[in-house]
């Protein structure tokens, strides 16, 4: 036997070459069919009628208005959601109070609720047949079938995004640093800005990126509360549906390509942030709903 058998490792479970190769092969083929193909087909379909048609769709006033609606919605919903996420994480991880577990469960509810159910629920708050509808109508305040409704519905579906990134991290970091800072005389805000924020910034950004992607892409909830008024309350995803059902498939795919590009950038940002340590879930030793509670 030769003396150059460098780097040999005993096989771990599943290291049999045949098994290993077939499993990688199966996963790659299925992944290409299920994940990659839908992405590629968007590009192919978007340019089916050539560059000019593509540019024309994007330059159309309705498309531009839909893009604007989507951006404005994100510009309102994401910062508000971020502020909420920070407040929720601060109160839950830095203090003990009765009902904390329940609060954690409630924050995570939007994850398990269908966006359609969310949209319907908003109808029964702000719609004419809802709780505040008649009063709002009397005072001529428009929430449904207008921007506020779209923003509110987007906030519902993304409510847990920032909080769930921050809570496990801030839980793991404990309270020592903040307590030290306050004992040295720092104010609450200063403590947060100088001590807490530097430690959570990547996780925060990670939550913001995911939240933004969801806000820009939300369809079900928004389609109920927006009223789908072309050129007025259409966001980009709704605009896609409209074009698609108008038999303007190329236009729909052209609009979809914008969102697909945003999705790809979201993934790139996600990977970059994960390299900085964000988003790595702690071992799921506790059910997701109570992830932030200490035993």
């Amino acid at each position, binding site marked *: *036997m030769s*003396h*150059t*058998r*460098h*780097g*040999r*490792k*005993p*096989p771990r479970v599943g290291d049999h070459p045949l098994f290993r190769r077939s499993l990688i092969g199966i996963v790659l083929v299925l992944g290409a069919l299920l994940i990659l193909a839908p992405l590629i087909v968007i590009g192919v379909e978007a340019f089916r009628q050539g560059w000019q048609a593509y540019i024309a769709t994007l330059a159309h006033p309705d498309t531009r208005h839909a893009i604007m609606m989507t951006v404005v919605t994100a510009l309102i919903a994401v910062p508000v959601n971020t502020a909420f996420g920070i407040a929720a994480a601060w109160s839950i991880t830095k203090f003990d109070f009765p009902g904390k577990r329940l609060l954690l469960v409630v924050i995570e509810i939007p994850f398990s609720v269908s966006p359609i159910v969310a949209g319907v629920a908003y109808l029964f708050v702000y719609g004419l047949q809802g709780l505040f509808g008649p009063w709002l109508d009397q005072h001529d305040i428009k929430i449904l079938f207008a921007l506020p409704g779209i923003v509110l519905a987007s906030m519902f579906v993304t409510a847990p995004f920032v909080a769930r990134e921050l809570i496990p991290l801030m839980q793991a970091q404990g309270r020592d640093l903040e307590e030290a800072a306050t004992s040295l005389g720092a104010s609450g805000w200063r403590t947060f800005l100088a001590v807490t924020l530097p430690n959570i910034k990547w996780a925060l950004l990670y939550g913001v990126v995911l939240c933004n992607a969801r806000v820009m892409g939300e369809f079900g909830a928004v389609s109920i509360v927006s009223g789908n008024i072309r050129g007025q309350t259409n966001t980009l995803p709704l605009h896609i549906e409209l074009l698609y059902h108008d038999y303007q498939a190329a236009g729909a795919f052209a609009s979809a390509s914008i969102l697909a590009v945003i999705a790809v950038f979201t993934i790139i940002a996600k990977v970059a942030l994960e390299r900085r340590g964000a988003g790595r879930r702690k071992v799921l030793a506790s059910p997701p709903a109570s992830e932030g509670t200490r035993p």
Partner: protein
Amino acid sequence: MKIRLDNVIKTFDTFRAVHGVSLEIESGELVALLGPSGSGKTTILRMVAGLEYADGGHIHFGDQDATDIPVRNRGVGFVFQHYALFPHMTVAENIGFGMSVSKVKRSKAEIAARVRQLLALVRLDGLGDRFPGQISGGQRQRVALARALAVDPKVLLLDEPFGALDANVRHDLRRWLREIHQELGITTIFVTHDQEEALDLADRVVILKEGRIVQQGTPQEVCRDPRDPFVLKFLGDANRLTGEVRAGRAIAGGAEIAAPGVADGPAEIFARPRDLDWSESGPGVAATVTRVLDRPGERRVIALAGTGEPLEFDVEPERAIVAGEAGFVTLRRAKVFSLA
């Protein structure tokens, strides 16, 4: 089972962990691989187990070349440093695991009976239904041992078996492991960085440094006749004096001691704290006491030699000695290594 390692080499990436180690372990022997971290001791143990493959050399189990036999066919029992008990199985299921997955089919009752027997052997009767997370560290250690013994291994391998335990638990388990070894007579190798543990427990101690064996022998041999300063220092506290050897006698300051067989010239003189003594008048190494530490059995004196070398030695509890006192340190016993 006799084990023979023949010029075994292991390299990780670019770091060579084991440099051509050759070692023979007799059937039924209890051997300690002793060394500081990075000395390659765990890597050697894992290669014997088949958890790592050697890059060069051979490992023989009896007459069989076991170098390339995977761990599951090697017939070794391995006790992991942090026990590696299956957290989702009860203690009894953990111990019975090896029997239940064995190619030799055993009935449930047979396995249960053997598990009970092993639980009794490791003195954990009645704890079979607990989960590993529900018992103490010392108990987990014994479960890990019972689990390894359950497959009737030809060789028992233990990686830092007491490393994660409290000092007092460690002491009890050490004695108990020795008893079990005597009872079962399985060839056993364990890895430790604790010289006291190795000397207490092993028939033979193999001392490693940077992937090489520096010395091996019975505890008596390595203690009484350390081959080099590393072994001597690793086995316990020692004072070091530089001096000179002339015609079979080592001289340091005013102290002098026989150094038979050491070549003339500059030398290092090592002496344990108990092997130095204190006298008010010479001859000896002139020194000043800096501190006296009182201990139950003796008084530890810390002194500074005139040459600037710090010295530590023990005197009887009754001896009156105070910091600031000047006097002479004499050598009662010492080990001399030539620096030439």
